Structures are given as structure tokens and as C-alpha cells.
């Protein structure tokens, strides 16, 4: 059985839930999984990784600098760790961090990389990924000594498969100095779940009319444990920041449930969300293109529909 390394994303010494599907994909048909983390994690977090099939948990560092704030150093340290542990494949999440680290790694090692894959098969060295903004799916083979892939968050459903886990540390030496350094992080004033990681997304299009009106979607999002998105038209009109944009020139997302409010259904919007499991459209125009390409539709004004949806969800949760 192949041995597969995964880069696990952490937050405050805990393992983000979004990693569970990644661990499941790496485990495949019984692969041995080595989980790499970039900071010390709690015992509880190690247990969590073991629940999803990780047999080894390795904290990776470098003697020449901080791997968390230097992406190039991180990529080089991870490449060394992968070599040290003799993995046949290495995977991460296609998040802001994962996309960056894995592209650096692939370039440094001059190996092919399947980026933002929807499926990976390490034994067969193949991956399935989107082309032409989600209009086509490509199957690619990756030859080479180490198969590299990033997996679209939520693309693979997590399956528990508990094993015994061993914790270890690995410090890379002789990998040079960092050439890209993070000097600061600007935290947003608004607490917002990362769109690409959210299991549910509720999006407001141009008819939202103002930044303040997103409150009705945020109220609903709290009940749904959802993130709030925006269409390009709403972002270009100045109603929402670009970080909230879903679609061609924004985020590509794959949630379990995507609720599009006042979104017409342009090809470019679908490019960013068509791999969602269920898409619900809410639009005042019964002939809006969104209804031709989604799963469930409600003809109505989001300012009327969404508060009622929030209310009904609260009622059913309380029952």
C-alpha cells in the first residue's frame, strides 16, 4: 500500500474540520497516512487525526526560520519531511495556504501537481480536476517519484477510519533562508467563515442593494452555520468586498448547500459553485437562468423569503 503524506491545516493548535475529507481521500483503499502540521497541536487534535486514519502526526519546522510565516521555507521543509518519511504522494487542501505551499513545492521539486482536484487516486496516480471554469472535467495522470495534489475543500466527504497514531517532530536543516516573509496579518473587522471551507453558503446578488442589507443573509447564515457570499455584480457595485465573491474571478466553492439569492445565474457565477451538492435559487424572475441550472427554486423577493427561511429554520431547530 502506498504511503501518503498530507499537510493538515491548523488553527490555535486545533485541526480544522475541513481536513477530515482530505484525510479520507489520502487514506483511500487503506493507504498509510502521515499527517504533517506546521505548529504544535493538542493531544485532542492528534486523536482527531487518528479518527480519520492518520497513523503518524509530524510537526514540521526548519532550523533557519519560522515555517508558518515564510511560505517558501515551509515548502522546502515539507519537501524534506516528505522525503524523510518516504511518502509516495503528498496532498493538501486547495485553500489560500495549500494552493501556495503546494505550487512552491511542485516548482522546487520540478514535479507535476494536480491543483484543486475533486478526486485523487494515489495508487493509480490519477486525479480529476476542473477545466474551463468548471465546464469540463479533466482526468490527469501524474508520473514521477512523488504524486502531488491539492484537494478542493468539501469535495470528498469525510469517513471515520480510526487507527493508532504516533506523534513525532521533524526539523529540516540546510534548506537556506526564507526569501518571502510575512510581516503582518490584517484581520478583517467582520468575523466571517472562509467561503472555500464553509459547508453551507448563502449568496446575495446585485438586488441586495447595499452593504447593510447583507444583514438579512448574515442572520440566516448564523442559523445555517453558513458563510455569506456575493456575486460579481454585487461586488462591482460596492456592496461587498472581493473576498466574498463567488465565481470566475472570485472563489471556487463546493459546499453541501448553496443558496443563491437574487443571482441571475451567469456562466461565470456557476463556474465558482457548480460542484456544490445542492443549489437553491431564489429570484423574483421566474424566467431567471438560475432556475434552469439549480436543484430547487423559489420565485420571490429575497427580502421577503430570507427572513421567513431564517424563522422556519429556527422553528425546526427548536422542535
Amino acid at each position, binding site marked *: 500500500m502506498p504511503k501518503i503524506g498530507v499537510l493538515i491545516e491548523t488553527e490555535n493548535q486545533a485541526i480544522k474540520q475541513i481536513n477530515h475529507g482530505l484525510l479520507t481521500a489520502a487514506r483511500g483503499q487503506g493507504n498509510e497516512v502521515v499527517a504533517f502540521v506546521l505548529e504544535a497541536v493538542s493531544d485532542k487534535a492528534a486523536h482527531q487525526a487518528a479518527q480519520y486514519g492518520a497513523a503518524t502526526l509530524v510537526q514540521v519546522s526548519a532550523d533557519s526560520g519560522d515555517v508558518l510565516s515564510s511560505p517558501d521555507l515551509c515548502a522546502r521543509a515539507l519537501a524534506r519531511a516528505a522525503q524523510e518519511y518516504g511518502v509516495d504522494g503528498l496532498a493538501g487542501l486547495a485553500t*489560500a495556504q495549500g494552493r501556495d505551499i503546494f505550487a512552491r513545492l*511542485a*516548482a522546487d521539486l520540478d514535479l507535476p501537481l494536480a491543483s484543486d482536484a475533486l478526486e485523487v487516486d494515489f495508487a493509480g496516480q490519477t486525479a480529476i480536476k476542473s477545466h474551463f*471554469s468548471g465546464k469540463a472535467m*479533466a482526468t490527469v495522470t501524474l508520473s514521477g517519484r512523488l504524486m502531488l495534489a491539492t484537494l478542493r475543500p468539501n469535495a470528498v466527504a469525510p469517513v471515520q477510519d480510526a487507527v493508532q497514531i504516533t506523534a513525532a517532530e521533524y526539523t529540516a536543516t540546510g534548506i537556506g533562508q526564507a526569501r518571502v516573509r510575512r510581516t503582518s*496579518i490584517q484581520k*478583517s473587522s467582520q468575523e466571517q467563515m472562509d467561503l472555500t471551507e464553509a459547508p453551507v453558503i448563502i449568496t446575495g446578488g446585485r438586488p441586495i442593494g447595499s452593504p447593510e442589507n447583507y444583514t438579512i443573509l448574515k442572520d440566516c447564515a448564523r442559523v445555517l452555520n453558513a458563510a455569506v457570499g456575493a456575486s460579481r455584480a454585487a461586488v462591482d457595485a460596492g456592496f461587498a468586498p472581493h*473576498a466574498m465573491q463567488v465565481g470566475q474571478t472570485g472563489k471556487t466553492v463546493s459546499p453541501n448547500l448553496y443558496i443563491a439569492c437574487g443571482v441571475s445565474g*451567469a456562466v*461565470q457565477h456557476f463556474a465558482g459553485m457548480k460542484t456544490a451538492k445542492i443549489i437553491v435559487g431564489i429570484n423574483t424572475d421566474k424566467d431567471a437562468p438560475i432556475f434552469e441550472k439549480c436543484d430547487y427554486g423559489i420565485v420571490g423577493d429575497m427580502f421577503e423569503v430570507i427572513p421567513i427561511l431564517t424563522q422556519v429554520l429556527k422553528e425546526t431547530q427548536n422542535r
Partner: protein
Amino acid sequence: MQVYVIVKHVPDTAANIKLTKDCDYDTGALKFVVSPYDEYAVEEAVQIVEKAGQGEVILVTVGPDKAAATMRNALAMGAHRGILVKTDDKFLDSRTTAAALKAAIDQDGSPDLVLSGKTAVDTEGCQTPYRLAAAFGFPVVNEISALELNQGRAVAQREIGGNDKEILELDLPCVVGASKGLNTPRFPKFPDIMKAKKKPITELALSDLGLDSGGADLVTLEPVPERSGARMMQGSVRASVEELVTILKDEKIL
């Protein structure tokens, strides 16, 4: 400042892609454009050279003969000239693409900065900026939404999820991949479009660059079926919402 900008010739994002057999698609009636993120890179390069008061913006493209027409659109935005590395391979892997770009730039001059879009919208690889940087031995940052150059250093802003941003520093020369928000690409005016027709585009053949290829091999390319149409909820708003919530609970989505 010699600023090289990597530009890709891609099908218009609004167009339907008609797949044909053997991992190919019909380009007959298809409109091609500059890959949207590359426009931010071109705009940034033009602004940097304008601000410096001297220097050149050179576009570099790996693509078919027809890509020259697409490059003219980017030249009309204020770039000075172009280099086209010709290949008919529509899915050239990013390793070979980066090697071709490096070879073409080496023949031309010495970059102070290389800009590109963060990803091309056809193959969605998000890798060429990194591979090009590795080939040059330059540091690289990608998905950048703000950039400042100051005394040989670049300070770049990058979105890291949940509306948060990180600030990264690196030395020039470097490779920077552009994201939306970096600037607002200009719409070329008629005189700019006319001027762009006369700007030089040097053409090279990929086969003359002596590169070995190989990497990710495309095995199949299949259309993604659209959903067949929504099941519409009926009755009053309240009734519609209740019906939807019931369905989503039955399907274990909620």
C-alpha cells in the same frame, strides 16, 4: 524597469466549450480573450513603468498563431511589445510552459520584475508563476491584491480567507501573480487600439527552444452536465420555504 508580463490566450469565459474526441475542443467559432487575471498583471506593469518614467512592458505568451491577435488587446492597454512562443498544444503542461517562457525571456533581456495572472481560466493550474520563478531562481508570491515596489523590495498583500489579508515582503527581481483587486484594468481607447496594431510581436517556435516536456498528462476531458432545471417550490412564500426546508432535511443536507 524591464517588466515582463505573462499573458495567456484562452477561450472567452462566457463561451460554451464544445469538446471533441481525444481531449480537444472546437476552436472554430470560439472567441478568445486575454485570461482575465492577466489583465490585472498588464495594468499593474503599465502603471509601474509609467510611474518609473522609464522602462518597458514586454508581453510573453505561449500559444497558437492566433494568440498574436489576443496579445494586441493587451498591447492596447499600454504594453510596448510582445514575444509569442508558438505551439499548437492547447494543454501544454505548466512545466514546459514555464521553461518556454524562461527561454524566451532569456533571449530578450533581463527582467526586473515578472508579472502574471494568478491562474489561467482554461486549465486552472495556478502553477506557472511558481515554476517560472523557480526557473529564474527568483522569489515568488501569487494571488496578490496590492503591490508596492520600494528600493529593490516588493511588498505584496494576499487574501488568506475569511476576509483576512497577509502582507508579504520579497526582494526584486521577483515573480508576482495578480488577483482581482490589484487595480482596475483600463479599457483601451480607439487610438490605443490603432497604435497596438503597429507594436512589434517577436515570434519563436516552441520546437526551436530545445525543451523536454512532460508532467501531468491529460487522459480524458469530459463535459460537466448541467442540472436539468429546478424543482420549483409552490404556494405562498411561507409554504415554499417550509417545503424547501422539509426537502433539505429529508436529503440530510440540513
